[in-house]
């Protein structure tokens, strides 16, 4: 996008989205700036040692103290300018640039870190349908028979507005142990501080980790679409489609949870019925009714 230099009407005083985005790019480029730093030979043995920045933006003051600080800043600047004849001026890049250089890890380190993360994913299992009573100690004790549990990390529910079962990521000592747990828990229903719903185990995936590192070689280019662009309408349609799909997804989740609720109630009724039967039998045995009836009918209930 080019603009006529003297065309003040188009430059204008109204910043549109395009201007804002151009400014965004300009900000990135302009972040590569430097400061003039005055260094006094008498105060510093090395020329590279910075004394203080020559200038800084004076923020607006909101109180008397801030005003005094602003005055002190201006007076400090004046002192600096007054002593310019005895100083040398060096160009030193801003701390942001240096920090950016330091923080930008070399590609090899990033790749190594990502590979380590992949290894971690391989030896991690995803546990689902956990009881609310399950804690890290319970998991370590329960899975201790399969191997050594290195780390336990529960996955909180932050987005689904319904009560869903608890899930967790469990890192084992090696990949073999992780595979063994998955195979064992898939073959037989495994209860962990709760019954009769079994715990489900799956191999972990990359997207399950909230603190996963970025893919080293990925380059992301985002497009900021203006209202005049033909894709703007398509993008709005995509937004509406996403909202609709999200609503459908939540509706499906709610339906599935309702089905689970039905199964839960059904099993609870079954368990209560069995409990009543057991209670009645125990009552007959304790009261001696069964012995009396046996003697009357001439039956032998003992094993003798």
């Amino acid at each position: 996008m080019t603009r006529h230099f003297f065309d003040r009407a188009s430059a204008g005083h109204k910043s549109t989205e395009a201007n804002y985005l151009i400014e965004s790019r300009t900000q990135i480029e302009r972040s590569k700036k430097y400061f003039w730093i005055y260094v006094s030979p008498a105060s510093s043995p090395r020329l590279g040692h910075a004394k203080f920045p020559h200038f800084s933006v004076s923020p607006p003051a909101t109180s008397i103290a801030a005003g005094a600080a602003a005055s002190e800043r201006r007076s400090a600047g004046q002192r600096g300018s007054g002593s310019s004849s005895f100083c040398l001026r060096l160009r030193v890049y801003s701390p942001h640039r240096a920090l950016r250089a330091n923080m930008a890890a070399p590609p090899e380190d990033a790749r190594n870190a990502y590979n380590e993360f992949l290894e971690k994913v391989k030896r991690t299992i995803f546990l689902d349908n956990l009881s609310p009573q399950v804690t890290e100690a319970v998991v370590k004790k329960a899975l201790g028979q399969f191997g050594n549990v290195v780390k336990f990390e529960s996955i909180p529910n932050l987005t689904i507005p319904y009560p869903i079962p608890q899930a967790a990521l469990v890192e084992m000592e090696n990949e073999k142990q992780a595979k063994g747990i998955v195979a064992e828990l898939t073959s037989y229903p495994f209860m962990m501080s709760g019954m009769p719903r079994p715990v489900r185990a799956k191999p972990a995936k990359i997207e399950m980790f909230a603190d996963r590192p970025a893919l080293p070689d990925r380059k992301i280019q985002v497009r900021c679409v203006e209202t005049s662009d033909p894709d703007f309408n398509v993008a709005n349609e995509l937004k509406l489609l996403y909202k609709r799909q999200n609503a459908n997804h939540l509706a499906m989740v709610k339906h599935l949870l309702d089905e689970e609720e039905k199964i839960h109630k059904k099993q609870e009724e079954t368990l209560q019925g069995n409990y009543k039967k057991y209670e009645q039998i125990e009552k007959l045995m304790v009261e001696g009714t069964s012995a009396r009836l046996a003697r009357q009918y001439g039956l032998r209930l003992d094993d003798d």
Partner: protein
Amino acid sequence: MDHLEDPSNDAPRFQWGKKRGVGGAKRNFLFYESFMIDNIIYSLYDSIYAYNELGEPHIGKIVKLWQQPDNKRKVKLVWFFRPNELNNYLEDTPLEKEIFLATGEGAGLCNINPLEVIVGKCSVICTLRDERNPQPSNYELETADYIFYRTFNVQSFTISENFDEKIAGVEVKYFLNHKEDQLDSKTEVKADTDKVGPLIPIPLSTSMPDPLRILENAENNSIKPAATSFKKAADIVSKLSGQCLPDKRGSPKMEITSEGGNVEDDSVYDKNISHSGLVDGKYLKKMNIPAQVMNATRLNKNEVESNGCNSSSHLRKESSEMRSDAPVDKILKRMDTNASKEAMSHPSFQKPKMESNGAGSSKEILHLHKNLSENRNLVDGKTKIVDGPEKKSPLLAMTKKHSDTEVLQVTRRPDVDKSKWFKMKWEDRIQKAEREGTLVFVENLDPSYASSEVEDIIFTTLQLSCTAQMVPQATFQNPNHGQAYVIFKTRDAADLAVSKINRGCILLPNGSPLLCSKGLLEVPKSSIRGHLSVNKFLTREARMAVSTSHCSQPNTIEYEMAMEWRLSEELAGRSLKILHREQADKLKEVKKRLKSK
């Protein structure tokens, strides 16, 4: 010393715009009306972001631009205050995107800063109900970055809706909304005498051959002998310049003079178009006149104002005399002849003078060179104006609209905000951010993105620092859409981010537009479905056996119930899988319609 590097390679492209005048005690301070950096034009009274090391950039309005003798560029900014900076003085809840204009006298009103502190432009709209303030349209309000209708007096620390006539020596109309007509109006900013000195227009050169030649021609053609004062000569030159310019818009004087010469002007312009090579030379030579005329006009107007004469009536009389005594076509022919003579004899004309006269002629030649260079600069500026109508064609307009979409390369942001000494648990941080109003929920991300990549995207598109955390993909999460919680530093930043993302359109590489909302979704506790209490009838040994975790044995009621749960989960998984597959197909179908994906 490792950081020492030549900054010329990294320095952005910079160019000053229109010059306003000179100032200072020695008249060596150059004042400008605008400047351009990296193809972005900043003008006087633009609202800008100013660099701030501590957090969000400051918002200010440019009221003065100048360059010092040591080539340092300076800018004077009048500040706006954000609501969070005035928490102790605000008695009510500020509006969304509201800021406050600084007024009064004292610290905090305005500052003189290096030009490098400007990091971007922003749009600030005034919504004050006042006759001096043109009311903004709904579109302007919607697209504005900030709005203001109140002021903060930095002297009395009060917030009010009263606007003084002048703020920091500038008329209040330049701080309010302005129409297109006001953009070209001349500014009336007074210079700071303590620091910079008075602002003086550029003086006109005393040795100007063209007015003298024109006077001689006028005398030869029996024009009434005008006074030898410089004022009248300047008037005559200004009229001729009005007739030469192809742009007919301008002062009423020019309109009057152009009425009689429409045909000639059009014919001259057509000739210029038909003969590109020859016409360029002639036209460039003709453009030498307006440069001098502009200076003459400035001096002329100053003298007229100082003398108290009625300039318009006087100029009209002169124009009528000129029209009656000397036809326009004759004058144009003479000017063409003069231009061609100058062009043809310019090289040979200089050499004899240097050889014959010596020091005096060399000074004159140097002076001419300076004038020519200045004229060429102005001519270059003028030719760009001529190219203006070409950009108004519909094809160019369509091309321009299509190219408005910007593709931004996401780059790593500086991680200065991340603390390595103490890290709060993420759930606690979310709760805290929710209370402070700085939490934003971003949706429709690529599920494979990492938290750091989301932070980079936000920084690149919105220029806001944040901390992000991707939502893990668990059982009931939609695998087609990624979600993330983003924590900004301030509530204003969060509001700005929500506004920008939802009102605009940011497309990710996979074609998904970003969506966001504020706040944390209230979620209930974990479910206990399927986990029945069996403590009623189990013995102590049995309860311990259950808590130690075990595999269920076949032919038991526990095993049957477990199998029932397995079946239910399998059916649920298949249902979700089918739904997500259908949704993915639908998304893919719509994304195919994106043209420049």
